């Protein structure tokens, strides 16, 4: 991202991702210990609307910039 606001969105996404990463790692540990657990544990949790909003803004930003180019 090549503008101030673009970087700001990216930073916000990354900081949320960091927190989520910790949660995912914990979750993975649970998975390994639970032999009956057959679900994937490595997908990204986007149930938080705030995070989803940031992802929308980031993708819209990319598309607007690309479109204009």
């Amino acid at each position, binding site marked *: 991202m090549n503008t101030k606001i673009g970087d700001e*969105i990216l930073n916000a996404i990354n900081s949320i991702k960091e927190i989520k990463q910790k949660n995912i790692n914990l979750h993975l540990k649970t998975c390994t210990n639970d032999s009956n657990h057959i679900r*994937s544990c490595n*997908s*990204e949790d*986007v149930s938080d609307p705030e995070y989803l909003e940031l992802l*929308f803004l980031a993708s819209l930003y990319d598309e607007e910039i690309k479109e204009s180019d």
Partner: protein
Amino acid sequence: MNSSLHHKDTYFEEQSFQDLVDLKAEDQKTIAIIQISRMGDVLQTILATKIFKSSFPNTNFIFIGRIQFAKPFEFILKETFNHIYYVNFPKHYWNLNDLTLDKLKSKLKLFLSSIEEHNIDSVVNLTFSKSSSYLATLISSKHKFGLIRNSSNNLLIGGKWSKFVYSNVMTGDFSPFNLVDVFKNILTETIEEQNSNNSHQLKTNNFFQSISNTNINQYKIIVHPFASHSKKFWKSSYWQQLIKMLLEDEHLSIYSFVVVGSLNDKKNYLEFNNFLDNYITNTFSNRLINKIGILDMQELSDEINTSSLFLGHDSMGGHLAAIHKVPTITISIGSVRAHETTPYGENNFNLVPKTTCFPCFPDTPCSNYICHLDVSPELIFYFVHALLSLENLESNEIKTLYSYFTQKIPSTYLKTSNIYQSYFSNNGMQTLSLVNTEIDFRTETLNIFKNFYNILWSFLFNDDDITSPIPEIKCKKIFNELKEYLIGLKYVSDVNSFGEKYSLLLLEEFEIATPNIAVIKEYSKKIQEIDKLALDLKFKYPMLSPLIDYYHVCKGNLKGNNIIQMATSSLLNFKEAKYSVNILKEFIEKTLDRSRKNFYSENNWIIRPEINSTRSES
């Protein structure tokens, strides 16, 4: 464990919208349509919604579009949509100095909350882009169609027609359907649970018949020589040549030509503008009118509405003409797919190149634009001349037109292009029919398959019974190619049989008192391998990729709230895929049987396939 299986297992806990049948009565429904693509898509969405609304007049519609592409059409949007919302974050907005993330988030929250005040029943995302998938997810509604995200950020595609778009329209030139029909069908899926009695057969023809245009100047032709991408429109010297030919032909002296375009077109194509201005001043002041850069969208719409013909490339202009039921001639080059984008309606013509690489993708690198040479100014001139000389187009059957155009257009120009004419088939969907003589060895197999897929998808998705004569092949190369595809279909069928087998074994394992996780993992792995095998087959048999891709996307969106339901859905998906394979196999076998006799007689290879004569019969 098969990755596609466990993805579903996670997200269908939250997203089982297809199973939630709690629809309000049709006349109380509120549908929010997301169309944040470009102007052409906005107009195709408007047309689809207008047709839908003519059958379901009491449905409330909300339109959500990007401000720069939708706002210019607000005067048309207002006719169909009860509420219009603009995603107002254009490029310059992101560069504002005082813009902060908090401001951005507040603006978005306000936007979303205003939309949600309408108590939306269904969100229909017709855009298929990344941002639209997030937007559709963010808007609360009972049902969602088109691209959305699940809570694990995986793509989730609701509805058969949306899966079709994702697997067939986004991937190549295999779709036999106009995008207006596809959008119309996606909209219809929002009400089909309640209206099982052929609700999909919307009153397309009635809708068009209801448009009456009393202000037509029958001698005014609109020329729009631009498009959104340089790949999609001729260099200006071609247009100069064509305009000269049209003006200088004495048989066309009663026609005037109004050239239209945007302010940017005026700035970017100064040489062309100078040509027009000089030519007008010197020779044809009363018959050539340059309105490039001086009309707003409403004025352009009025200008098109009072004309008798629209001539241009694939762009929003043609779709605007379609909304006003003005006949169109489209020159489709570059990345344009005629079947998807021909202006919607009857008797619209589309001229497309036969160049091997046509149609490409917008981002395919290309420096020489060979396909632009195929559809020459001379061809367009002869075609326009022939069409305007035709006394009553609608009374002519396709066979008569075929013979007419081949007499009127020198064969040299026909060799490099295909000319398509649009008509509505008996299920109310637009279809294209070839009207030129030259058989196109490159695209003939593709055209045959497109016709097969038209029948197959119409039947599977809408239960439409489309009849079409069995094509007769007199080209040995195509005959042999079809024979090869029979082998390909057998492989696809075998792969799906294995899928059925392992889905069944999984279900059997689940039924025992203590299922063995290792066995379940083994079977799931097999299913994963089977999915990969199917995808590999499409590289050897490219015409089968629409079928393979469609069921692959279905596989990625299996219904079910637990692993047993998922395995059951997987089994049903493999079964339906096999069923579709058998239908295609039968079509090919019948075609080969019918054509076999041709190879015992003389080498009469060039024919007009009978597939093109369906218009008169339907």
